[in-house]
Each structure stands twice: as structure tokens, then as C-alpha cells.
């Protein structure tokens, strides 16, 4: 079995603030995961806001260098300095879809110009017909068309249209790995399902693996093979998506599932969180611990005393 992506004991520390109020943030601490080349999968990351999901994704994309640990793609180190050529090749293989489409696009550049530069850069296409064909093909996959997009600036599109255009752009080089950071947070439920189904068909029909970051536990359940749950820079639970979500074990995972709003009580205005559960989830993080395996194959972070 060969690995597509291998993340080993990766950490990232940021130092922020001025000279006087310097402090550091452990954005990611000791994260490990790996994806196989033979079995394309949708690997989901869920977790707290600010728990390091985007930072981990940025390190996988080679946009951020880990402070510790190693990341390799098809056996080659991503975290090391590489030649321009190697870097371009890597970028064609691992394509991003970012959290906020309004930030992903340059506001002063037409959408199709942005897609065009991706097509030229990674597919080495020169004839306008070929470029247009590649763009239209990718746009059609997400339910848009080149005719609809041509000549329009990002602010002239709705949030949902823009997010679909961002996914289309990532699909242009036909990458084996897509890193999608909250790709469906800005679209309606119907479109959400169609984008999620699109990710699924990319996996099943084209063998594309997807690292899927989301806050939406329902779509995570619906499409993922495996998932990790992160809290304050750490992986607190990892395993088969349905096993974990059906019956989460870590206190934070349980809190997460319990906090999902339902429509069952529509109109009743229930917005209370069980304070005991929240306290337990947060208190656990203060103590040292480590990931332990369970008979059902999952890993759970367990505190030293509580083991």
C-alpha cells in the first residue's frame, strides 16, 4: 500500500503581538494522519472554531511550514524547500478550495480570468478553445457554465455561485487530492447536497481524495469515510465517520453532537447548552493526555489520570 498523503506528528506555533505583548499560539499540536493512494476517501476534519483545521489544511497545501513534524505527498516531503518545478507539480496535484469565497478571489479580476490563469499554469494550454473547454468542463461539473461566468467580477456573484466557481477552479488541473475548507457553508441545502454529492462522485468516479473541513456534522456523516475531531490544536477523536458520530466518546465530540440544532422544536427557541457537558469538554483539555485505540478502531484522546 502506498500513501498519498502522510502527516506525521505535525505541530504549528504562531507568535503574535508586538514586542511588548508577545505571545504564542499552538495552532496545531502533534497531529498525525495518512491517506492511501489505492483507496481514495473523503477524510473529514471537524472541530472547534480556532482549533487549527485551516492551519492543518494550509500545511498540507504547503502554504504554511510546520514548526515540528513532517508532511509528505506520494513519498516526497512537502514541508521541505523544493525547486520551482517540483512545487508547481505538487500544487497541480493538491488543490485548495478555501473557506471564504469572497477572500479566495481577487476582487479586481474577472472570475474567468482567474480560472484561465489556473488552466494555463497547470494544464499548459495555449489555444483559447482548449482553455475555454477546460474551464467550461470544470464549471459544468459544479452546475455553472462559462457563459454565465464570463466577464463577471466576484462581487457580481452571489455567495453560492462564487463558492461553486472556486470548486470549479480547483478541478481544472484534475488533481488527485482536493483540500476543501468549508466548501458548503454558504450555499442552500439543495445546492449543499449537490456539492457534497459532487465531492462523492469525484471520489467514486475519478478516484480523487478529499480532505473535507466542515462544521456540518450531517454532511460529514453523509459522505465521509473517516474523520477527526479537533479541539484547541489537538486531535481528540479519530475513526470511521459513522462509528464516531453515531456514538462519540470524547467529551468534546459529545458536546459537539449535542449542540447540533434541530428543527424538531421549531419555534420553541431552545438555545441552551448543557453547562456540565461544556465544562467537562473544556476541563479535559487542560490535562496531559494521549490518543488511545479502541476495539472499534477509533482513537480517542484520554487524560492520564482518567485512563
Amino acid at each position, binding site marked *: 500500500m502506498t500513501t498519498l498523503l502522510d502527516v506525521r506528528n505535525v505541530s504549528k506555533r504562531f507568535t503574535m503581538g508586538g514586542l511588548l505583548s508577545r505571545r504564542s499560539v499552538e495552532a496545531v499540536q502533534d497531529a498525525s494522519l495518512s491517506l492511501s493512494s489505492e483507496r481514495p476517501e473523503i477524510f473529514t476534519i471537524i472541530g472547534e*472554531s480556532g482549533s487549527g483545521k485551516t492551519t492543518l489544511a494550509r500545511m498540507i497545501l504547503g502554504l504554511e511550514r510546520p514548526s515540528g513534524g513532517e508532511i509528505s505527498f506520494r513519498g516526497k516531503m512537502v514541508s521541505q524547500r523544493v525547486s520551482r518545478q517540483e512545487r508547481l507539480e505538487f500544487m497541480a496535484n493538491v488543490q485548495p478550495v478555501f473557506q471564504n469565497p469572497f477572500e479566495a478571489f481577487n476582487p479586481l479580476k474577472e472570475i474567468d480570468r482567474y480560472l484561465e490563469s489556473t488552466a494555463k499554469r497547470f494544464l499548459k494550454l495555449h489555444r483559447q478553445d482548449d482553455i475555454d473547454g477546460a474551464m467550461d468542463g470544470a464549471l459544468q461539473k459544479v452546475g455553472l457554465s462559462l457563459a454565465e461566468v464570463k466577464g463577471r467580477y466576484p462581487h457580481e456573484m452571489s455567495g453560492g455561485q462564487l463558492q461553486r466557481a472556486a470548486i470549479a477552479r480547483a478541478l481544472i488541473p484534475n488533481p488527485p487530492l482536493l483540500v476543501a475548507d468549508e466548501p458548503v457553508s454558504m450555499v442552500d*441545502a439543495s445546492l449543499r447536497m449537490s456539492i457534497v454529492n459532487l465531492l462523492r462522485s469525484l471520489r467514486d468516479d475519478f478516484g480523487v481524495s478529499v480532505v473535507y473541513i466542515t462544521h456540518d456534522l450531517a454532511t460529514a456523516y453523509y459522505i465521509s469515510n473517516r474523520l477527526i475531531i479537533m479541539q484547541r490544536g489537538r486531535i481528540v477523536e479519530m475513526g470511521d465517520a459513522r462509528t464516531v458520530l453515531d456514538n462519540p466518546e470524547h467529551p468534546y465530540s459529545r*458536546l459537539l453532537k449535542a449542540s447540533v440544532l434541530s428543527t424538531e422544536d421549531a419555534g420553541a427557541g431552545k*438555545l441552551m447548552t448543557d453547562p456540565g457537558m461544556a465544562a467537562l469538554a473544556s476541563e479535559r483539555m487542560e490535562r496531559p493526555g494521549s490518543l488511545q485505540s479502541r476495539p472499534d478502531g477509533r482513537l480517542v484522546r484520554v487524560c492520564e489520570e482518567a485512563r
Partner: protein
Amino acid sequence: MTQDLLEVDGLKAYYQMNYFGVEREVRAVDDITMTIRKNEIYGIAGESSSGKTSLIRVLAAAIRPPMRIVAGSVKYDFKNGPMDVATASEAQIESVRWKHLSYIMQGSMSVLNPVRRIGKTFEDFAKRPLGLSGEAYRARVLNHLERLKLPASLLNAYPHELSGGMRQRVTIGLATVCHPEFVIADEPTTALDVVVQKEVLGLIREIQQDMGSSVVFVTHDMSVHANMADRVGIIYAGRLVEEGPTRQMFYAPKHPYTAHLVASLPRIGDTAQRPALEGRPPSLANPPSGCRFHPRCPLAIDKCKTEVPPLNNVANDHRSACWRWEDVKPLVAPQQPVMA
């Protein structure tokens, strides 16, 4: 004193563009009439690109070319006097901004200046309207950040040093720190984890209730509407197609599009596909005749193709724009009987 804080009447707001001599018109808000009451939370849902952001941009008096109000009025009854967005001057809009009317934009990070520390941005927005300075100002801001579960050290940070969720809470903080009468929010909690989302929604409601203010918010997340809103309005192709008390909208919808929307929500544990709508979303440059939903509607009859259904009262406080509203069946069975 009336019950209503905002009255929107026959509002049409279009994007009018000229591409190399070709006129193009996107009718993003096309004849909307609605009122927002004092002390209520009104949720707006609808398809992607149906005109929700465009509508609330008008409500927020944040209209920029190529958008233009083509017809109608948007009348507020603020404590410092009435204002019609359609005719208000820049100075008049400036005088209500943040203190009476605040707006949290979609993809809200864009209000945060990337080269300015968060603390400076707070000063830019809030210091003058609050009329506080020194310790009193600082205490007010810190207290507000604490309610949003944000650390005080964040005031020294630059936007890029924060996670998406933290930035979103910062913008909610900016929009509410002056305790405005009317808060407009476009997808205010989409970048938050469900634990923080619930807290932030609770906080928005707490602030709303403390102040007796009105909140209008847009989100695709129907479960957020279910738990936050007093009333919900559904937009389809630039029009308000149904509006009513939250529970009725979920369990006794009177428009086929609403019935679809409510049923398309996946739940944890779902592995089967939810029904998708047939056909493509309508074009706002060239919308379908008659009822704009007719090409995709399972209940459509001939009349729907030619005659526009008016938004009529169909039940207590409940309006629908559908010729066949009596035949609409909820696609989700209520767990408890609908409360009258």
C-alpha cells in the same frame, strides 16, 4: 407609537449594467412588500442567488452601483426620527449607522481592515457613536468581547491572525457594541462550530431582548431559523413567496418551495439522498412568467404559467404567494402538533 419598525412597500432594486453597449438588468429584488416589527427576530431563507443579500443590502442602506432602487419605499421609524432608505441623504444614513442600524455583511471579514489591529477597528466604529472615552469606553468594549467569548488580547491582533470563526464573532461584536435598534446580519454564524454557533445565537437573542431591538438575518441553515426566528420569510427568484410564524413555516408550509426547503435539510444519521429540485435555478435577468416557481413546481397548473400569484393571507399572520396553497402538504411530519 406603532408596532412596526420597518415598512417595505413594493420594493424593486435592480443591478443595471452595461457591457460593451449591451444593457443587462438583474432584477434581484422584484416587488417585495413586508414589515418588520419592533422586538422581533425575522429570518430570511431562500435559494442561493435568489436575492437575499440584495434585499438586505437595501434594508441596510448599503446600496452601491450598479444596484439601484427602481421603485418602492423602505421606511424606518427610528427613535431619532423616520427615514426612507429610497430617499435618504448620505448624512442621514451616516447619522443612524451603527447606533440605530447596523449591518453584518456576508463574508463579513471584509469590514476588517487587514492592516489595522482589531482594537483600532473597534475605535473607528464604536467610539464616536458610544460617546465614551478612556476607561469607560475600554470597559464597555472588553465586557462586550467577554460576552462573545473573545479574549481581550485579541484587540492587539491583526485580522489574519484570527481564525475564521473568531473574525466572525469580532464582526458581530462590532455590529452590536452600540446596542442598535435594528440589526441586519447576512449569514452571521456560518463559519462557527456548532457549539460556538449556539452560544453566539443565544447571545444575539439576549442582546435583542435586552434592547427590545429588531433583528433580520439571512441564513441557509434552516435549523438556525427554527431555533432563532420569531417569523421566517422565504425568497424565491427576487420575490417573497411565503412568510409566517416559525413553527407554522416548518410544519404547515403553504408554498411548495418552502415545503421543499424544509425537507431538504439533512440530519446526522442520514445516508440516503434527499430529494433535489428539478431543473435549474431561475435567471433573474429573464425570470419565468407567472409564478416564478412554475417550471420546477410539482403542483403547477396552467394558470401558474401566466398569472402571478399575489402574496395573500392564508392563515393567522401567515402569507403565501401560491395559487394552490391549500393543496401544499408538509414533507416533514411534525413531532408535536402545531401550536395555534
